[in-house]
């Protein structure tokens, strides 16, 4: 069960049970959805974007503990970031969940997702909301699926 406690760290279980910034964002000016067709997980990410800066972010939808906690922690980390900073943060997060290694300290609580790298089938869960958020921030589309290349 060692791998399991690495995967489901306390911070992940906490964000799964009590997701932060969960719900619609009435003042959002960018919205995108993320769908994982293989399991049915689906999230909507709402952004308030002003001058290329993410002023507010929220999400709703349903998914597994990994995808929900990742979405919750993502919303916490994206508050106040520029779109370029968000892209960089995702690159670091993606590196973390695919290799288990963190390059920098920026990830803070999101470092809890290092254990995902032991479970290749679950990497898409951890990145689902990120794809939706980046699509919304870039204005490149309102739908993300796990079938797109990362």
């Amino acid at each position, binding site marked *: *069960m060692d*791998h*399991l406690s690495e*995967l*489901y760290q306390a911070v992940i*279980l906490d964000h799964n049970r009590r997701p932060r910034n969960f719900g619609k964002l009435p003042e959002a000016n960018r919205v995108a959805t993320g769908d994982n067709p*293989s*399991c*049915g*997980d*689906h999230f909507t990410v709402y952004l308030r974007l002003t001058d290329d800066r993410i002023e507010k972010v929220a999400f709703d939808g*349903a*998914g*597994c*503990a*990994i995808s*929900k906690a990742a979405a919750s922690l993502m919303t916490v980390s994206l508050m106040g970031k520029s779109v370029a900073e968000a892209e960089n943060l995702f690159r670091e997060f993606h590196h973390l969940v695919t290799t288990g290694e963190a390059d920098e300290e920026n990830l803070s609580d999101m470092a809890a997702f290092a254990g995902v790298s032991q*479970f290749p*089938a*679950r990497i898409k*869960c951890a990145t689902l909301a990120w794809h939706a958020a980046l699509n919304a921030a870039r204005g490149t589309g309102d739908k993300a699926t796990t079938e797109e290349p990362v």
Partner: protein
Amino acid sequence: MSAASSSWQRGVVRADFPILDQAVNGHPLVYLDNAATSQKPRAVIEAMQRFYERDNSNVHRGIHTLSHRATVAYEGARERAAEFLGAADASEIIFTRGTTEAINLVANSWGGAFLREGDRVLLTEMEHHSNLVPWHLLAERLKLELLHVPITGDDGLLDLERVDGLLDAGVKLFAFTHVSNTLGTVNPAAELCRRARERGIITLVDAAQSAGHQPVNAREIGCDFLAASGHKLCGPTGIGILYGRRDLLDAMPPFLGGGEMILKVGLSASTFKKAPQRFEAGTPPFAEAVGLRAAMDYLDDIGREAIFEHDRELARHARAGLADLPGIRLLGTPDGAGIVSFHFDEIHAHDIVTFADQAGIAMRGGHHCTQPLMTRLGLDSTTRASFYFYNTREEADRLVETMARIHKFFTG
């Protein structure tokens, strides 16, 4: 009880499956994903190996000895499949890539020739995507209307009182699953076909989940078409079976075009062989047919009646244990096949499946390719354990114990 069935029930049969004898994540493998694909007994693996080592050659066209041997083996598998599924004759058996291709063949060939704009096709709410999407494609092409027999609720039974009314609404074809891959529901196939037949409606039975798990006889069911997959009944991937009533097959145009299925080919036109060859374009899966034949022999040695009772008993045992877990929503009924599907409000199926995998248990979480059924049940996903004759009561107990630990981990 035959000698064979008394010995397999003592677990001796497990020795026939090399894959079951391994540890996964530090625990003895418990394989409960049989509705997705079954494991292969040594008899099947060795039959295919023998074929590749001694007889491999392309079928039908060859004059040489190996080609003759391969052709005899391939056509012998067809005869065996006819017996296995209760066809009147081997010419009613078409080898396809699987159940999905078999249904696509009927939709395109029979449907394309005999359905017209405004015609109605009746399906059910519990169909696998493989018995929905081919009809979606055809409906779009021909402007058909699709109707669906509803289910009654979490018990996952078809609402039989609605069937007659739906059949009377101008339906030309009724396609339904024999056993639900998600719920384990065993539909009354013979009764449904009788009602359709009385109205002159063509029937297609998706037997992917039943053919290897219970006696399936197309003539006793009284269907017009029946589809099954080799890999779900201990055979190899890449081969499936379509049973079709001979008079229907004779009237149907080809599905795919190519070699093997032709009488004469010119530059701009060609003529075609009779069924079943008309529907088998290109090099067929002959090595897979050899493996499939060995699988059918293996299953009938054990007895599909006994397999059905064994699967069902394990599912009932597991259901009884799972029912005690707080917050569990069990789908289907204890009268179903060897499939148990369940949902916890607070725990997602993928978390359960990851946790179970770490305990050596292979199962499946998700929509099981039945998204409309999930929508009907108000769920995004379920966790599914599906049993087969090589599973044991101890494995069902391990499933229940592990689910109890998962529940504690996520909610305790």
